[in-house]
């Protein structure tokens, strides 16, 4: 236990955990964890997938019961273990990653949902619910139409609704599990402001996130877990992203600019004056063999729409697209795939992979034509193809027939990449490939991307995290309001320069 810091300024912690042990079927998920949260602080819980963060949260919220000998003290009360009801009643609220909201119900009903609970039917007090909801939103400094169904609002607002719901529950301590995973930069900034408001009003927030930049920005203290054991608790003052990565993984990652000059290679994709009014205007660029082109920009910059147009899923109004010199017009993504374009979608979990199906079936879905024998699918060819890609990309799997949902985020992402590589593309478009993937696995994915570029594949890497494109692309286009406003060469400029331009 290195770097352990005693509670600052002698403040008595709101939550004190000691001797937390947890075993699942012989595997020790948590080993002798201690964890403190001060009243009103923003505390970050960091660790890679499988490090025990979620297990710890579930123990504090009463979903799991720790092994004997554990001591939990919350708000002056001592417990041997929590139950969901005691946790909620004493003021511990969780905002789950999937939010657990009800899209068809109104915003007011979602926020004041607790008033609808109870075994015996009562008449619903809609006015009371509305008032509570408006009040909770006002505390967060947000106005939403509380009478509209939640489905009318985007994910960023739903997040706020989930936070408002925690406030109605008289929260003293709020856990936020990956709250920014599906938000863009500007939405994230807004959410972080709200977290600050919350903490200023005396509610302690425990923040779980993979994005280290925002961890440093928002939290005052940090507890790091690795492989179910406590690495330590630290002040975020003077902490850097690379130091946190080191603590989380136990390894050091040197981030270096990989950018090289592919200027002499033949052009694979040439886009000229491509427009789709309202989404993007007059886009021109080229991508060469072996080159990685980064595209970054804020929400609404038109990045994804541009990618979908190149992939044949949206129709551009004007402009031309040339693939290896030949003009192409795709009427569907089937045409684009046949022409050699692969697209790894932003929303990998819902769109990119078919969760209940097997690893093998997911991997071959886009290249079924290659594994037929006499017009019928051949199981042995499928096995060979899958085995080859799994070795090439270093994916850790159990059996080929296991459901894809059994894999970790990083390995799922590799399968999704392999699925497209199996189609032998000339151009690979990666749209936000590391959303929901932890640091160690991210490095693995970008290693693969770099190797693919070396083999001559042209790659477009889309991300709203500027460092991601800065460190992994040879050239970076900055899109804003549907236009390319800037081009940067990472080899010749600093990260701060690009960040200043994008987040300005």
């Amino acid at each position, binding site marked *: 236990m290195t770097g352990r810091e005693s509670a600052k300024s002698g403040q008595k912690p709101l939550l004190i955990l000691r001797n937390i042990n947890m075993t699942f079927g012989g595997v020790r998920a948590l080993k002798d964890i201690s964890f403190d949260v001060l009243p009103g602080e923003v505390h970050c819980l960091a660790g890679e997938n499988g490090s025990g963060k979620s297990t710890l949260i579930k123990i504090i919220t009463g979903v799991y019961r720790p092994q004997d000998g554990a001591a939990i003290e919350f708000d002056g009360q001592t417990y041997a273990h929590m139950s969901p009801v005691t946790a909620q009643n004493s003021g511990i609220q969780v905002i789950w990653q999937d939010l657990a909201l*009800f*899209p*068809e*119900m109104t915003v007011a009903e979602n926020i004041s949902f607790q008033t609808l609970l109870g075994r*015996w039917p009562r*008449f619903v007090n809609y006015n009371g619910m509305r008032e509570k909801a408006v009040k909770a939103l006002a505390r967060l400094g947000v106005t939403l139409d509380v009478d509209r169904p939640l489905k009318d609002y985007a994910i960023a607002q739903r997040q706020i609704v989930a936070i408002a719901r925690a406030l109605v529950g008289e929260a003293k301590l709020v856990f936020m599990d990956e709250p920014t995973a599906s938000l863009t930069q500007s939405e994230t900034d807004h959410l972080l402001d709200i977290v600050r408001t919350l903490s200023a009003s005396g509610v302690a927030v425990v923040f779980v996130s993979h994005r280290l930049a925002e961890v440093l920005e928002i939290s005052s203290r940090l507890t790091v877990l690795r492989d179910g054991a406590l690495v330590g608790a630290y002040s975020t003052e003077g902490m850097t992203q690379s130091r946190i990565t080191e603590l989380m993984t136990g390894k050091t990652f040197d981030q270096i600019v990989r950018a090289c000059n592919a200027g002499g290679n033949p052009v694979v994709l040439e886009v000229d004056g491509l427009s789709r009014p309202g989404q993007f205007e007059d886009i021109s660029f080229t991508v060469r063999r072996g080159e990685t082109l980064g595209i970054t920009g804020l929400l609404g910059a038109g990045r994804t729409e541009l990618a979908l147009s190149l992939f044949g899923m949206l129709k551009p109004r004007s402009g031309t697209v040339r693939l290896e010199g030949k003009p192409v017009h795709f009427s569907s993504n089937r045409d684009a795939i046949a022409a050699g374009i692969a697209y790894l979608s932003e929303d990998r979990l819902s769109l990119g992979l078919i969760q209940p199906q097997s690893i093998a079936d997911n991997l071959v879905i886009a290249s079924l034509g290659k594994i037929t024998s006499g017009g019928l699918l051949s199981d042995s060819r499928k096995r060979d193809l899958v085995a080859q890609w799994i070795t090439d990309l270093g994916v850790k799997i159990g059996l080929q027939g296991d459901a894809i949902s059994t894999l970790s985020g990083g390995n799922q992402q590799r399968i999704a990449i392999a699925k497209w590589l199996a189609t032998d593309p000339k151009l690979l478009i990666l749209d936000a490939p590391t959303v929901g993937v932890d640091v160690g696995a991210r490095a693995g994915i970008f290693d693969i991307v770099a190797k693919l570029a070396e083999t001559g594949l042209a790659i477009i890497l889309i991300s709203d995290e500027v460092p991601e494109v800065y460190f992994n692309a040879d050239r970076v286009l900055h899109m804003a309001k549907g236009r390319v406003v800037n081009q940067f060469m990472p080899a010749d400029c600093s990260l701060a320069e690009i960040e200043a331009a994008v987040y300005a």
Partner: protein
Amino acid sequence: MHKVVQSHATEFALLAVIAIISIVLSFITDRFFTLGNAFDLLNTSSVNIIFAVGLLVVLIAGGIDISFAVAASVVQYVAALMLGWMGGGGWISGLLIAGTLGVLLGAVNAFLIHKFRIISIVATIATFNIYFGLLMFFTRGVSIYNLPDWLTSRVVLFEHEMADGSWIEITLPVLVMLICVVATWVFITRTTTGRQLYAFGDNPEGARRFGINIGGMQFIAFGWLGLMAGIGGLIQAHYAQEVVPNALYGRELDVLAAVVLGGARLGGGKGSVLGCVLGVLLISVTQNGLNLAGVSPYAFKMIVGAIILVAITLSNTSIEKLLPFMRQEEGRK
């Protein structure tokens, strides 16, 4: 106004389709557009509306039920036998018996679905066959005609002769239907349990995390449909003045189509009582109009099918796209 239209798009679309069909029919036949006919429609649709509001509750909770119509037949038959043994009975004992039997049969579905984790459509297709098989086996398809007098005599609560010579009548089935509709509306929109049902249908995992009793939700939803099926079954026997074991066979799909037409979503969390009633009425209006227009009954199903497609398309494409002034509103946002 815009907000009201937007949040009740399905209901407005249905009203519009009903209005269009009514206007067309009133040109084709002179009998259609009379108050007398309107009340006739209400009387004949009562049983289907009672079934429909029951089924609505199950759909909102994320389930589906294929068995309720044959369950209603079982209830009719057993209730008729029990009333015979009791030596007559009356409306109160009749409704109590029918309601209780219905709830029991619904609870069987809920039990199978909750206890053995069988998907509701599979569980209720099984019980549909079991209920109907048992009924036909034990009755050998024999109908019951000697029902108690109170059950077979028409109860007219209000009647009035119009200037055009047609009669407007409100009969007992209409009153019972109104009570069922209002009760369902109060239940699902005004009580905490009703809102829990919506939440459960909308996001079962979310509901579970809040400690909502999942098994309880299934029993309440299928129990409510069972209650409505029982009451509807008795009312149908009263309306038909006989109990024919296979009279309601096939009714489940008509009612299901009407409820889905009314905006309920297969998959849960969505649906309104008004939409559901309008859905049934749309189908009844069409059948009644075609009847009056002298169209062959064999063509009914085909035309009703086409209307379901049109109405569903209308309500899915959302009103905004069809009305230009709405589109402007949208653009300004």
